[in-house]
């Protein structure tokens, strides 16, 4: 654990990523305190440029709402969707992958064909279908994003289990008379976890992007202040008041970058041998 921390803290990109991510978290936490009003309420004259008015440091959008307030409150939505959707995807992925990899045979066949069925559909199209069918409130969108993101973690978990299940320590557990569930989740899973944790950062970055892409098409929940919604709104005035889309775009870029850098840092710290190349 100590070596892991030292390895992580020593890498500058990983630290930059961590600081950026903490900044986004700080924005989300301080949103209610810095911008106590409803971020979707009218605040002033529409389409004021950033730094033009002391009350609106980031300007206002085409409905006259405060962009800074939307950015701070939007950080909550992006993080919420990122974390919850990732948790769903990883959890489903681990269970499916672990069962397929450990048992093999027909269990593996059935689960992997199902995974492939999900993978052959472009996940954004699948997401559009799910949102079109089940509506576009925040809960549905989050679950839908989780539901289209699990196949890759499942395949990764399965690959790890395939190599681990024949290791002698697993056989030793079986000769002791240990049950399958306990072997899968208590013995093999902790050994399979590092690459899955690293992959979770990729899933999280993609989840945030998926939500903003949905919002850009105005298919996300319109009743919450999300970065994607703001980009979608700014689309109408993109040629002149480009800042309406550019500011939330930058926020998404930095958040996704932060998550990716943290993921890369975790990877290097968890697999120290790979880094020394």
């Amino acid at each position, binding site marked *: 654990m100590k070596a892991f921390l030292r390895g992580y803290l020593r890498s500058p990109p990983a630290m930059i990523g961590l600081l950026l991510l903490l900044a986004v978290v700080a924005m989300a936490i301080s949103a209610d305190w810095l911008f106590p009003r409803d971020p979707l309420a009218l605040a002033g004259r529409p389409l004021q440029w950033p730094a033009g008015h002391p009350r609106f440091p980031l300007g206002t959008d085409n409905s006259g709402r405060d962009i800074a307030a939307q950015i701070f409150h939007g950080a909550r939505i992006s993080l919420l969707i990122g974390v919850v959707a990732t948790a769903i995807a990883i959890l489903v992925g681990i269970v499916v992958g672990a069962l397929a990899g450990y048992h093999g045979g027909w269990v593996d066949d059935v689960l992997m064909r199902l995974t492939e069925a999900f993978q052959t559909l472009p996940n954004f199209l699948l997401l559009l279908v799910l949102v079109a069918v089940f509506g576009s409130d925040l809960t549905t969108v989050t679950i839908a994003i989780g539901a289209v993101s699990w196949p890759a973690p499942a395949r990764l978990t399965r690959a790890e289990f395939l190599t681990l299940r024949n290791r002698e320590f697993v056989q030793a557990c079986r000769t002791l*008379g240990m049950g399958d569930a306990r072997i899968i989740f208590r013995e093999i899973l902790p050994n399979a976890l590092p690459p899955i944790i690293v992959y979770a950062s990729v899933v999280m970055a993609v989840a945030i992007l998926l939500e903003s892409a949905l919002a850009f098409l105005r298919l996300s929940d319109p009743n919450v202040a999300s970065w994607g919604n703001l980009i979608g709104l700014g689309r109408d005035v993109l040629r002149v008041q480009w800042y309406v889309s550019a500011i939330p775009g930058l926020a998404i870029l930095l958040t996704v970058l932060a998550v990716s850098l943290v993921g890369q840092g975790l990877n290097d710290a968890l697999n120290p041998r790979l880094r020394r190349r």
Partner: protein
Amino acid sequence: MSAVLAIQGLTVALPQGADRPHALDQVSLDLNAGEILCVVGESGSGKSMTAGAVMRLLPPGVAITGGAVIFEGQDLATADEATMRRLRGARIAMVFQEPMTALNPLRSIGDQIGEMFRIHTDLLKAEIEARVLSLLAEVHIPDPRQAARAYPHELSGGQRQRAMIAMALALDPKVLIADEPTTALDVTTQAQILHLIKDLQRRKGTAVLFITHDFGVVAEIADRVAVMQHGLVVEEGPASQVLNAPRHAYTQSLIAAVPPLTARAPRAISAEPILVMQDVRKTYRTGGFLGRGGRVTHAVRGVTLMLPKGATLGIVGESGSGKSTLARCLVRLVPPDGGSVALDGLDLASLTRRQMRREAHRIQMVFQDPYGSLNPRRRAGELVAQGPMIHGTPRVEAMRRAKALFELVGLDPASTERFPHEFSGGQRQRIGLARALALEPEVLVADEPVSALDVSVQAQVLRLLAELRERLGLSLVFITHDLRVAAQVCDLVAVMKDGEVVEHGPIARVFEAPEHPYTQALLASVPGRDFARKN
């Protein structure tokens, strides 16, 4: 005699944080023309580093910091990379331990041997082809023409190693460095390869630097011997002198640890059986669609054996003989296809998985790989306590027993809080043994329990096993490919070949007067058997 290759005061530094500052410390060795110099030592002694330093193929972070390697008037320790490239393969060739990983799996054998000529000479294509075929004939590969067209996976391990030797000798090098070339091979194949190396060396006058951990191999092949320990050459001299009258204490202890091939005096064995195998069968089917076109491997075909109470039954054989599959059938890691395994009258083969889990504590297994057989994320004490806890012992009680077991297998009871990677290979094997004993089994199945260990550690573990057997009244099934180890611990022995037991009986009878031709061949192939018998 003049030295072809002179290693003078060679020092190789390890990266910071390694267990010692130097991989090699002032190593001086002379390799003379037409002789085989064996460099022998345990793992971590620096013997492979010596070979790497001569070829200047050291792992990253490891560098030569002093001394010289004089070859044909040139110092290889300071030569530039272009010079080294010209020398490698052409003047100094190397044979590695594992021919499967040393060969490119996507190119044919002939193509890879021919590459030696394409890189270092400007021979024509037809000439190269002729040379490759004559080389393959020289290393006694059956049907050289077909072997040249074959890909590495299509040849057996022994044939691959022959191809590697052919490749190494292609350009008539002055020096051949062989790094444990027979360690990955079966004993009968090993005998053939050793014979081949010796024969080629005689005919071509090549100087051979032969690296090995096995004193049997040394006795078989060496003209001179250098013994290494912790990066130092502790003793050097003619083979007969080092083997029969070692001067250095370390050499003496190493040679004393080599088990002799003669069976110990027979013990009284009870007539009452504890484990009876009746016609045990296991067949593997791979590939094929709806059962057609698949490959069928009869791993175990109808084995019938009996283990008397308190006795040790050795099962010996080469790789692919089915001995490991049989061991796994006994503990039901692999469900047998047919036959019965009766433990004190209870047929384990007919139990359901759930019933077997309940009976698991009566028959336990010790595994081969001391690194792979312990979950790296669990503490050593927990690993030992796990078994009793599954079968209902409360945690506190199980941990207390684990501490007692640590003491029993000769480990510090305070070390139960440590993780497996903090132990050495021999200590880990003791943890594995403690884990199996924690359930107080009636029968212990040991699958190559000492094969991955250095010879001195091997001797300690074997002694511990014999001691525990006496104290706890254990009955043992001992799987091994090493006939010397079998001679040390077994009362009875069964020789397996292609899934069948070809001969079985009391070990003294089988080893002294083998009846089956395969047993005879196996015993005749043990390297340095005369040396081992004397010992």
